[in-house]
């Protein structure tokens, strides 16, 4: 089961409202390489993992990604806090506001809704772990782009921390992949 703990994994702070940046960070909420995709990927794929090590790493990283969704949603909300009508319209958020006000919704920065096609569960542990390592690198690249899009030191701090987590996850998935390959080599002959 899953349990909720009433706190963020890492503090999310902003210096000022910034509607343009809010729109950009939404990518990491409902975008193809965002936290929702990552979490759904890992929490689904774990059911076909052959080793306890990889069942554990997918469960625990998939759960951490749920916490990252909460952090990105908080960042979005804080960046919009106090935004005026003109600021929303200027940043191209008029349509978003009409539909969702300032509530985070599972869309990317261009308004494309999140879909299950962003996730993969091949059932083959080697294929799935390679997919997950690529997912972490794509998320890392997105965070780097986001860091370049803002001057706010507090926003950069949160984004840098999230970027570092992608690197740690990539490392753990790589170790999981090595364990699965060692296991497959000992069991299967073609």
């Amino acid at each position, binding site marked *: 089961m899953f349990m*909720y703990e*009433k*706190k963020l*994994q*890492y503090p999310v702070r902003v210096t000022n409202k910034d509607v343009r940046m809010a729109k950009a960070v939404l990518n990491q909420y409902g975008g193809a390489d965002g936290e929702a995709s990552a979490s759904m990927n890992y929490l689904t794929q774990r059911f076909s993992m052959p080793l306890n*090590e990889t069942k554990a*790493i997918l469960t*625990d990283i998939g759960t951490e990604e749920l916490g990252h969704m909460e952090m990105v949603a908080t960042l979005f909300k804080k960046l919009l806090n106090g935004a005026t009508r003109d600021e929303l319209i200027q940043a191209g958020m008029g349509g978003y506001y009409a539909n969702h006000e300032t509530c985070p919704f599972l869309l990317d920065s261009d308004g494309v809704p999140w879909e299950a096609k962003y996730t993969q569960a091949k059932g083959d542990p080697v294929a799935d772990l390679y997919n997950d390592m690529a997912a972490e690198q794509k998320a890392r690249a997105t965070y780097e782009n986001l860091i370049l899009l803002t001057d706010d030191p507090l926003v950069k701090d949160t984004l840098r921390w999230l970027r570092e987590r992608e690197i740690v996850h990539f490392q753990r998935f790589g170790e*999981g992949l090595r364990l699965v390959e060692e296991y497959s080599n000992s069991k299967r002959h073609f």
Partner: protein
Amino acid sequence: MVNYNRTAQRAYQQQQEMLLEVQKLQFVTLDTALYLDTHPNDPVALYRHKMYTDQLKTVKDAYEMQFGPMTIFGHEVGDNWRYINSPWPWEV
């Protein structure tokens, strides 16, 4: 949210400081646990995980005693359910 009442401001500051301690210790515990997932026999990581979970329990118990439970499975020692009224993460 700006708070002009000094007592309330001090309480808020204290809550934020204690929360940060919980976050720090939970983070090192989690990161060590992820490492243990793929290195389940590493004695140094096992030792560290035990040390961090012990410290985490101490600071979390102190936080929950003062500000109410962080999860619905925590002890509520007060006479009302403070879980709903302690700051929500996106409103801090």
